[in-house]
């Protein structure tokens, strides 16, 4: 897989233009990123630091010296006629990322990480034979992370991609937004008949801007290639696009001309020398990464491995969980974790202060677990605080035994058969009685108390 990640610098990689997404076309451009004659690129220091952090976090060997090269091709999104990239001497090589798929650990090799500039954006006209070019994205710093052909299933590919994204977010060097193109991936996929050692001809898949599309495109491509091979036909080495509407990959005909990029060192840029002490100080200041946090969550909060995995696989989720547990020490970490595992999206959306006060209301018995789930949805939808919602909806748990007892006795009287069944030892009927009481009280009865009352009245 080849993964491209936008680095979260304020300015572009070789000029001072802003990098923000969504500005009006061609309002973040200058002589340098428009490739005007006589302009010269100067490397953004922070972009190098961000790239180095990723190299360290993925166990890469950083090359003491690396070189920028020109990748030459002619396309309207590339004003200079070449893209500044790295070729023979990339920033870093020989790393790996450990992933887990259905409980099995796998180590995916990382061939190289190099720095490059992004190209512009083309908007093709629907009605006329023209394309509009916006150069705002031209020169936004990218790292390209190239993996070894180590992945064997679409699931592994998705886990690898999620793992990379998670590290980028932990390092705070990329926003990981696949829809806006801050994180993009190309996948090369080939089949290998059983017993054969070398991989077959491969197709390169592009345009997969979500994890779901990556999985769907790879699954489709496996089916397509398998059918071709089974029919005794050959796989054409080509680039294919994922067509979201048609749910299939389609050949990019017309672009099949062999790549001939004629790379050479860019004479406008001097080589990059990464001194050992620079690298060491970056290494020392790396934030806690997902793998370390997973271990700490188990040790510090006594969480099962599964819980720690789910929590740490998303930085915001892990941050919110940790803040909730630290700010509300009376809540048990496992209880808090259950809520995050139950509804990870909602729990990552609301603030730790809100989750803490919501869970405290459940712990105190003010509202039931089911009511709290309802409140959580409302908090996410309206942004109001839990107390307000509880008041507005009149949600309180009836924990007054005498009020519930009257209703419970009525239910028993109305259902003599079930009552007899219970007394004859069919304790499963208890669920029916509690359910009836919940219905009558519109979910406001304290379920534990309801259970106790029925046991007493039926005993």
């Amino acid at each position, binding site marked *: 897989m080849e993964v491209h990640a936008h680095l979260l610098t304020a300015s572009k990689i070789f000029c001072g*233009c802003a990098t923000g997404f969504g500005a009006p076309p061609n309002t973040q451009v200058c002589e340098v*990123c428009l490739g005007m004659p006589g302009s010269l690129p100067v490397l953004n220091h*922070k972009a190098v630091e961000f790239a180095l952090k990723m190299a360290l976090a993925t166990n890469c060997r950083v090359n003491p010296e690396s070189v920028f090269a020109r990748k030459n091709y002619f396309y309207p999104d590339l004003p200079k006629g070449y893209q500044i990239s790295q070729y023979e001497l990339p920033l870093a090589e020989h790393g790996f990322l450990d992933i887990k798929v259905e409980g099995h650990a796998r180590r995916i090799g990382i061939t190289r990480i190099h720095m490059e500039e992004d190209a512009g954006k083309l908007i093709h006209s629907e009605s006329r034979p023209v394309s509009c070019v916006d150069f705002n994205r031209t020169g936004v710093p990218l790292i390209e992370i190239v993996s070894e052909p180590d992945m064997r299933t679409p699931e592994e590919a998705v886990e690898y991609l999620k793992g990379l994204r998670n590290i980028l977010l932990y390092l705070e060097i990329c926003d990981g937004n696949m829809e806006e193109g801050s994180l993009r991936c190309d996948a090369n996929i080939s089949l290998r008949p059983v017993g054969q050692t070398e991989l077959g001809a491969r197709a390169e898949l592009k345009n997969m801007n979500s994890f779901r599309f990556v999985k769907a495109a790879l699954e489709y491509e496996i089916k397509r290639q398998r059918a071709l091979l089974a029919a005794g036909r050959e796989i054409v080495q080509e680039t294919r696009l994922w067509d979201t509407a048609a749910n299939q990959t389609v050949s990019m005909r017309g672009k099949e001309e062999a790549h001939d990029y004629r790379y050479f060192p860019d004479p406008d840029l001097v080589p990059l020398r990464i001194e050992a002490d620079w690298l060491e100080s970056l290494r020392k200041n790396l934030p806690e990464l997902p793998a370390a946090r997973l271990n700490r969550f188990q040790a510090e909060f006594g969480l099962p491995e599964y819980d720690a995995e789910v929590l740490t696989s998303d930085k915001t989720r892990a941050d919110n969980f940790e803040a909730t547990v630290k700010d509300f020490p009376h809540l048990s970490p496992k209880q808090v974790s259950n809520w995050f595992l139950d509804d990870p999206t909602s729990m990552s959306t609301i603030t730790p202060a809100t989750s803490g006060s919501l869970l405290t209301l459940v712990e105190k018995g003010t509202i039931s677990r089911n009511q709290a789930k309802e409140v959580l949805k409302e908090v996410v939808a309206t942004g109001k605080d839990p107390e307000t919602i509880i008041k507005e909806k009149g949600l309180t748990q009836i924990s007054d035994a005498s009020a519930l007892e009257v209703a419970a006795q009525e239910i028993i009287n109305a259902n003599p058969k079930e009552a007899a069944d219970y007394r004859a030892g069919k304790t499963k009927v208890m669920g029916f009685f509690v359910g009836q009481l919940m219905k009558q009280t519109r979910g406001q009865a304290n379920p534990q108390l309801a259970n106790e009352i029925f046991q007493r009245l039926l005993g």
Partner: protein
Amino acid sequence: MALTRDEVLHVANLARLSLAPEEIELFTRQLNDILAYVSKLQELDTAGVEPLAHVIPVFNVFREDAVREGLDRDAALSNAPAREEGAFVVPRII
């Protein structure tokens, strides 16, 4: 190693240039002249010389990550063959 006519056509195609028949002949000859001239460098014995990416011994020229005002959009588009809603307009490629 002389450059063939096919190689000239290949390079022209990569640069999206269409050459007239007499230009193909002319450029093939001229490019070969240039290559012959530069190939004098091959006479140097470079065994034991490390490959060099840059001729001056300077490394790590950086700028700080600070945003600088770029070009005004009208100025940026002033060389565009055609423009529309702030974008450069080019013949459709896909």
